[in-house]
């Protein structure tokens, strides 16, 4: 397991991300070198001015001009550098996010469920941000530091190679410290990101479950949960800090020791007469030039380690195998659906066992059964949200995989059991599929009995509903979701217990509307109420994943005692309805 953990991120080459932005980064580096180079020129101009003054007792106006031009150029180059740097880093982040979103949107429901939304959220925000910081700060700093280190090292070697070798002896010490610390720190950064995922989850749940927490007065356990993860984040942060807090002084000290060695050893050489005083002074000043970039690289190593850990996590998503090939079949459906020998496991427990069913075009089928019978799973299989472990789903005699997914989803409407409302206008919530024509929209809204409700809203369809639909009642949400499915003008409609929150009168009207406005529609409806489906062509009874019985209401009453029992449980009140 440990092995895998280390292996994965190492496949992800952080620097590979930069490949696409070579041009921009090249400009950036050139600008950085220009402004740094010009900055080195300024002392020379001053020296020149003083020398000139010593010679002629006047300040040469040429010197002032040179100085002014240099200052202006430095200003321009550093400004341009900051502009290019900002654009480059933001562009890398934006493109990375877009790639991620494209990848995620191409994936299956199961993938998102498995990876969890909180991890993907961290991928798209914090992880991407640390790569942004890497591009914004590390790239330029490392290149210019490396440039200065190499330049200064060459100068040192040319001045006195013996002393230079003493200086270069510290490089293995520094390299070793880097290697040791970064190896440790990368694991810690990975852990930190995972803790942030969990932090996201706890916050997310405390927000989605806000009402429940208030009803149960369970603030304290929530605080405890959050504190637990928050302390983990802090402790990891402190562990990382400890490593860096030790690494930076060690590197500085090693460099300082080199300086001291040069001072004494070089002093010795000068006193011995094997080195000139001028060279000795120059050697010392170049050495000071060498120290600063080494420190910069020390600071940047933090950013690199963090970015590497983050990129490893992002790469896991980008590198995940694509979901099943999309089929090519793009034909109007007739409305026949069948499932053959379906088996599905949820954890260890089978959720569906050897299910074979068929639904003829234009027929109406009700699926009933106790809670946790596998009804919802069956619908999810039909629409391709989940894949069966064995068996097949067919539309008009063709396997679901042969169909182009988009084409299939355009013709099959699905009304989910839980209310899923997006924070946008009702019009967008219903015409979720942009191809919904006005005619289809109006028909869907009328069928779902939403007209009266819409009239009470000053802005009608253009009313914006809040996230999680807090401004709508349960029944209103369910009808909006029905309208969403109907706006597709579907050939097949799958309903998952959609009338549970709608009163009897409205339910009846809606079902009548569907029959009237969508003739020829194949209807597959999971429901609890037998009364409203008695006249259906087929009733399917599921229990604990097993198909108990299929048939018409009349037939099942005689053949299936389980069905009769369910019917009995509803009978007492059905005479009112």
């Amino acid at each position, binding site marked *: 397991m440990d092995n895998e953990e280390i292996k994965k991120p190492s496949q992800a080459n952080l620097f590979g991300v930069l490949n696409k932005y070579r041009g921009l980064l090249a400009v950036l580096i050139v600008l950085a070198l220009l402004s740094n180079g010009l900055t080195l020129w300024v002392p020379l101009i001053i020296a020149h001015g003083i020398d000139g003054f010593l010679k002629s007792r006047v300040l040469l106006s040429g010197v002032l001009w040179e100085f002014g031009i240099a200052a202006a150029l430095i200003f321009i180059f550093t400004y341009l550098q900051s502009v290019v740097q900002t654009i480059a880093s933001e562009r890398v982040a934006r493109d990375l996010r877009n790639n991620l979103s494209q990848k995620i949107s191409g994936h299956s429901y199961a993938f998102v469920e498995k990876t969890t939304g909180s991890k993907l959220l961290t991928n798209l925000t914090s992880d991407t941000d640390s790569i942004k910081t890497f591009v914004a700060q590390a790239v330029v700093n490392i290149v210019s530091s490396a440039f200065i280190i190499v330049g200064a090292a060459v100068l040192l070697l040319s001045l006195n190679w013996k002393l230079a070798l003493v200086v270069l002896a510290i490089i293995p010490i520094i390299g070793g410290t880097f290697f040791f610390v970064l190896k440790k720190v990368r694991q810690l950064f990975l852990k930190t990101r995972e803790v942030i995922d969990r932090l996201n989850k706890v*916050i997310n749940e405390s927000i989605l479950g806000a009402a429940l927490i208030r009803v149960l007065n369970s603030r304290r356990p929530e605080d405890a949960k959050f504190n637990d993860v928050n302390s983990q984040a802090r402790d990891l942060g402190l562990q990382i800090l400890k490593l860096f807090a030790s690494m930076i002084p060690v590197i500085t000290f090693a460099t300082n020791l080199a300086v001291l060695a040069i001072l004494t050893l070089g002093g010795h050489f000068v006193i011995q007469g094997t080195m000139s005083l001028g060279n000795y002074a120059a050697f010392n000043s170049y050495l000071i030039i060498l120290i600063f970039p080494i420190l910069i690289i020390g600071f940047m190593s933090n950013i690199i380690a963090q970015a590497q850990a983050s990129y490893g996590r992002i790469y896991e998503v980008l590198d995940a195998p694509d979901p099943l090939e999309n089929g090519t079949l793009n034909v109007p459906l007739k409305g026949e659906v069948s499932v053959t020998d379906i088996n599905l496991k949820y954890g260890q427990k089978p959720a569906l066992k050897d299910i074979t069913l068929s639904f003829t075009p234009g027929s109406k089928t009700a699926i009933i059964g106790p809670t946790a019978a596998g009804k919802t799973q069956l619908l999810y299989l039909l629409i391709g949200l989940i894949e069966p472990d064995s068996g097949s789903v067919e539309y008009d005699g063709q396997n679901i995989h042969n169909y182009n997914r988009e084409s299939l989803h355009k013709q099959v409407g699905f009304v989910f059991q839980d209310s899923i409302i997006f924070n946008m206008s009702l019009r967008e919530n219903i015409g979720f599929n942009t191809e919904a024509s006005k005619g289809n929209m109006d028909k869907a809204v009328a069928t779902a009995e939403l007209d009266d409700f819409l009239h009470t809203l000053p802005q009608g369809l253009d009313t914006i509903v809040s996230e999680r639909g807090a401004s709508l009642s349960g029944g209103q949400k369910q009808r909006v979701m029905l309208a969403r499915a109907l706006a597709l003008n579907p050939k097949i409609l799958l309903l998952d217990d959609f009338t549970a929150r709608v009163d009897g009168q409205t339910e009846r009207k809606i079902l009548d509307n569907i029959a009237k406005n969508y003739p020829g529609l194949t209807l597959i409806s999971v429901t609890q109420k037998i009364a409203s489906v008695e006249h259906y062509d087929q009733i399917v009874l599921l229990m604990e994943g097993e198909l108990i019985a299929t048939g018409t209401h009349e037939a099942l009453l005689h053949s299936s005692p389980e069905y009769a029992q369910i019917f009995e449980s509803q009978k*007492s009140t059905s005479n009112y*309805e």
Partner: protein
Amino acid sequence: MSFLSIVFMNYTLNTNSASTQKTSIAEALKKLWPLILPEKNILFVALGAVVVNAALNLFAPLLIAHVINVFVPAKNYHGLMLYAGYILIMYLFALVTSYMQTWLMGGVGQRVLYRLRGSVFTKLQELPVAFFNQNKAGDLISRINNDTDRINQFFSQSLVQFVGSVFLMAGAAVFLLSLNIRLGAAALAPSVLLLIFTQAISPWVKKKNFVSMQTLGGMSSEIQESLNNFKVIIAFNRRDYFNKRFQEVNEQNYTASITAGLANNIFTPIYGLCSNLGQLILLAYGIYLISIGSFTIGLLISFIAYVNNFYNPLRQLAALWANFQAALASWDRVHEILVMDTDLLVEKGETAKKPGAVLEFENVNFKYPDGKEILHHINLKLEQGKTYALVGPTGGGKTTTASLMARLYDPTQGTVFLSGRDIRTYEESERTKKIGFILQEPFLFSGTVRENILYGSDEYQKHSKEDLEQVIKDDGLEKLLERFDKGLDTPIAGSGDALSLGQKQLIAFIRAVLRRPEILILDEATANIDTVTEELLEDILKKLPATTTRVIIAHRLNTIESADEIYFVNAGVITQAGSMEHAVDMLLHGKRDS
């Protein structure tokens, strides 16, 4: 509106306008102070380390210069070795102080981050449901994670350098002025321009950072919403739509971040320019002073060297200042949450007693902050031990009525009495103990069925596995647990997305019953449970103590047939239905306004 009406607190956080509070630095530090206070001593030690470290870094080069300029040309071995010894000691000290400054300041940053996150989260827990209806989960997450992290970055990384730089600058400035006041003042003059420039531009920079963090929050909301509802996106073939919406917010964030980045980066070139300007003035003025004979060339050369000690840290300060502005902008976003207060305060003092009913509504009106009135002049009296049913068309006000009973909201007008006392005078723990509310939208925490059932109940947390099973058996709940493949130990992942709504409702039911409330409210709590299991639930409800009052909201008639009293709720008005037949009649034929 009478004086009784309550002004609604606006819980909407600032997410689209760019207006930020104008906080001066002193004010901002004052606000941050409570977070730093526990770190005061550590902070002082750390600042001491920063100052010593900066001083050591300043003096070591001076000693080196002395060795090169004096001892080596004089072939003074003793001086060379002596000074080398001094320098070594200084480096050893620097080793310790540099470790201390990073470790101590970084520690302060981490702990401030920890406390800040904790206090935002605690504040979230204090705020009422209305707050969550008005704000997006993703934006809140972004504030707790990303904004607090910005503040941490400033504390752990920038503050050390900040203090070090200011110290070095101050030292250099004093040194320059004491060397030659006129020349010193001239060389430092551009920094006054910088001060004015920085003062003038900082609010703008902060604003740009604020907008950038806002768009990050917006993007986070979008991601959150899409990922939570991913199955709809797939089933409705809107993968492209997800992409499009994401690209839109991503692009907004890109534009805002670039603007913020450019704003942050404006300091560095300007500070650089001023630093060069200072040297230019120094050169020109210095040579003028020499030419009139009041300065020497040797002094000018050392002056030029020293002025770098002032301007180099100043240049570093440019980047740090941008970090500071970003931290302030994030602080504003975090602070917005911290200053919010719940409007559901526990009222003190004795209020009018209303003996008789276990729950009573007296002339209650209610409207949501943004909308029209939902409930009009409701008068309702619930007696102990009875079962009440609320029926009526969707959107009629049933859930709102139930929410007022549990004080998720306060009425805009009128009073709700719980056991004869104004419900607002109850402590939260007392009130929630009396009222069990099974919400319309069941919510599960990731964990196990057991954890979810015991959630928020101190009493059962302490029970052993066997005791708990016994309690469950006594209440007749064990049959319900058969619906979960591993019973109490069935794992629940990702807020229970793998469970059906019916299963979630069962868990909510078991949880509420185990708490033994005096009033049990079921808001369509069994709507997705099959009718056979529902009969089981009914038996369990019947077995509750005779003093338990039940309020049932349902559409299915068999759910409500055992009610003692049926109320018809339509268009914000509650009428007593009398008999079941009458209720059904109203449901089927009654005039309905919603």
